[in-house]
């Protein structure tokens, strides 16, 4: 079992870049498998992008922390933020979406649901607590 690593971020695009550099280094240090690392990185990026775009419109001092655990066969991230309540598990992709005409959104959450093996969500103390686990079992 590996100890968790944690990073605190401001919800901005440049901070996501800083997170990605940090995450890549952690995965390299731990020898995390390419697919597992890619799955978790994509999921976290989608969560952060969604939060930056929609999650902090009414938040005075927005922040996000990401804690990761990188084991050999399973990786996970716990993402905590003080933004608007949002449980991505209940989000449904628009039915009959036409990629040629409709709003090109919703891909991110669909990707998370595809890549994640488990998604846990809790809201308490005015914070979103989202845990995403990837074990590489998904296509």
């Amino acid at each position: 079992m590996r100890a968790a690593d944690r990073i605190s971020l401001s919800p901005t695009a440049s901070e996501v870049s800083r997170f990605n550099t940090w995450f890549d280094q952690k995965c390299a240090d731990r020898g995390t498998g390419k697919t597992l690392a890619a799955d978790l990185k994509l999921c976290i990026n989608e969560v952060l992008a969604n939060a930056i775009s929609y999650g902090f419109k009414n938040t005075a001092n927005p922040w996000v922390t990401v804690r990761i655990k990188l084991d050999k066969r399973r990786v996970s991230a716990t993402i905590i933020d003080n933004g608007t309540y949002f449980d991505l598990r209940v989000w449904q992709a628009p039915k009959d979406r036409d990629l040629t005409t409709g709003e090109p959104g919703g891909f991110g959450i669909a990707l998370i649901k595809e890549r994640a093996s488990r998604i846990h969500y809790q809201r308490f103390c005015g914070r979103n607590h989202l845990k995403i686990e990837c074990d590489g079992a998904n296509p």
Partner: protein
Amino acid sequence: MRLEQTSLPGDILLVKLAGPLDIAGAGEIETPFSVISGHNSKVIINLADVTFLASIGIRVLVKAARAIGSRKGRLIVFGPTDEARRVLRSTGIDTIIPVVADEQAAIAECSK
């Protein structure tokens, strides 16, 4: 994110992207892509050096493909890494934006 443009014979514009197409990278190319898609009808995009592709990058590509498609033009992408190809396939974007192996195939597809 680096973006290079090269004009090719047949009024084809080659756009080479390099770096991560995350939220920061997508923000950097959004305006250039808007200009490119407003002024060109045949665009091929080299994704070989795109080290990471998130959905926000997909949105930029979809918007460009739609703008070009509205003028009966074509946008083709080529050379994605295995992981980027996986993202393109997962989102279904490869059904509206052809994804091919290399530049020659992209030129051929664009000229159809």
